């Protein structure tokens, strides 16, 4: 038979990734239509971690809803709390005292460090390198010790209150934080030697998983995903909230738009967060940590407002609708992982499965944040 007469019979098959899979960071399911090792279509199926947060926002009083915020994006829980308490403060017209604002910034940036360190370890595990996880978790344990001494919790913090924070920080915390920053600064060259310069890591990440700036805009992506695509958008700079406008820090932007760019953005953000913490500690004023005359049963006036913060994963927004009672009428939580994941279907077409997993890891997803 001539070559032309022979037809090559091709078949695609459907491969189910998840909802239990070591690389899915929780319960994410992706229905992959595969042509060999190449992905023809990747349809994410989410909802396996749906925990009814928005319904609970309507059932619980404003204060009783605070613990929910810690369980939304639990790796960077303080940002969710920050967004929610600031939205309520915006509606109710509560002003936060200066010391509390500084403490919020310090603890939130420490949480960002913990989140990025955890991400770095988990990303490397996705790619097959187990060692960095042990190092990053070790540094993360120091951060959790500091935060535990102040908030009482290691993971699902419920520390911010309407009008301030729950506890004041003491000298042990300040000394410990400064010591930790010195330690982490000295560890960064080790991380770069271990991870960034590793040839296998570079081959797995450079040029892999390109997400263009226009794709980011069309899908509403945010955070390190867009900063790795060349867009300098950081809520702390473009739409400053709290007291971030007083601090001197850069927003790292890389233009390659691949997994390596997103990794480098997060590693540079670790450096910048340490700068912010040091400046906040230097400028820490004395004073109360709670606003005065905040009613125990908060009833913000009728109306609605929107508040967004720069979480470790992107823009976390809260649209709060109040009807004048002690429970929110509607608490919409705009999750960064939800929008970041929605571009996976378009961006993973034609990729090798292993590269798609690198892309998935570089999006930094926390599934209960996506599913709320």
């Amino acid at each position, binding site marked *: 038979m001539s070559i032309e007469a022979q037809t090559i019979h091709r078949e695609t098959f459907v491969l189910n990734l998840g*909802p*239990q*899979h*070591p690389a899915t960071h*929780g*319960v994410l399911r992706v229905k992959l239509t595969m042509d060999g090792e190449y992905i023809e279509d990747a349809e994410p199926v989410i*909802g*396996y*971690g*749906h*925990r*009814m947060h928005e*319904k*609970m926002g309507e*059932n619980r009083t404003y204060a009783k809803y605070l*613990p*929910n915020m810690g*369980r939304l994006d*639990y*790796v960077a829980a303080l940002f969710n709390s920050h967004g929610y308490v600031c939205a309520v403060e915006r509606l109710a017209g509560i002003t936060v005292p200066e010391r509390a604002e500084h403490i919020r910034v310090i603890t939130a940036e420490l949480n960002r460090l913990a989140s990025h360190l*955890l991400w770095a370890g988990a990303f490397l595990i996705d790619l097959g390198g187990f060692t960095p*996880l*042990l*190092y990053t*978790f*070790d540094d*993360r*344990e120091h951060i*959790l010790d500091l935060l535990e001494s102040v908030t009482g919790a*290691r*993971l*699902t913090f419920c520390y911010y209150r309407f009008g301030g924070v729950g506890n004041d920080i003491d000298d042990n915390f300040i000394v410990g934080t400064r010591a930790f920053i010195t330690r982490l600064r000295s560890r960064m060259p080790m991380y770069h030697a271990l991870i960034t310069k590793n040839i296998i890591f570079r081959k797995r990440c450079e040029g892999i998983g390109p997400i263009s700036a226009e794709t980011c805009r069309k899908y509403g992506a945010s955070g390190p995903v867009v900063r790795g695509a060349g867009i300098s958008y950081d809520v702390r700079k473009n739409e400053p909230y709290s007291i971030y406008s007083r601090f001197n820090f850069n927003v790292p932007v890389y233009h390659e738009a691949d997994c390596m760019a997103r990794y480098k953005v997060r590693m540079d953000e670790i450096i910048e967060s340490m700068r912010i913490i040091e400046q906040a500690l230097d400028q820490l004023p004395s004073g109360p940590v709670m606003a005065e005359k905040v009613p125990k049963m908060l009833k913000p006036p009728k109306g609605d407002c929107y508040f967004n913060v720069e979480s470790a994963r992107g823009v976390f927004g809260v649209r709060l609708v109040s009807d004048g009672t002690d429970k929110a009428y509607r608490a919409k939580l705009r999750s960064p992982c939800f929008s970041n994941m929605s571009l996976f279907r378009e961006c993973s077409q034609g990729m090798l499965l292993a590269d798609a997993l690198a892309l998935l890891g570089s999006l930094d997803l926390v*599934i*209960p944040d996506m599913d709320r």
Partner: protein
Amino acid sequence: MGERSVHLDEQSQVPPGLIHFAALDQVLDLARANSLWPMTFGLACCAIEMMATGAARFDMARFGCEVFRPSPRQCDLMIVCGTINKKMAPAVATLYDQMPEPKWVLAMGNCAISGGPFVFPGQYAVVEGVDKLFPVDVYIPGCPPRPEALIEGFLELEKKLTGKRRWPVAAAPQSD
């Protein structure tokens, strides 16, 4: 261990005391207790504390259980850490059924014990506790439980397997 999860009718019950190798059973139990292989089954927040328990500071490897296997066919311990959703419940039950005997289940965290903070009148998405799906051996309360609590859960499970506790329970500090 096996009878709890396999439904036996009266005719196919294994008669008790048919074959007993007392010392060998004890050795096997000790071996099983010291080499529990957990399944990587992180559902939600407690998964991070489980990862922290496996990491350097708390080090689950001391107890022989650092070998996390993603495949249920290769593990004997399912640590259910996180909330079980009604959408997720069939997958969890399938994973449990796929695990070979002998197998044990640790319910880590309040969500796995009873639905946790997500139970409210009119709730529509959460299964209130993993023991609604299959039997649980050890319950570890907390939201999330500290890594030390997870290790205590392992020690309880080991005591359940071998009859002896590896380390004595810490005495309460003497107050002056």
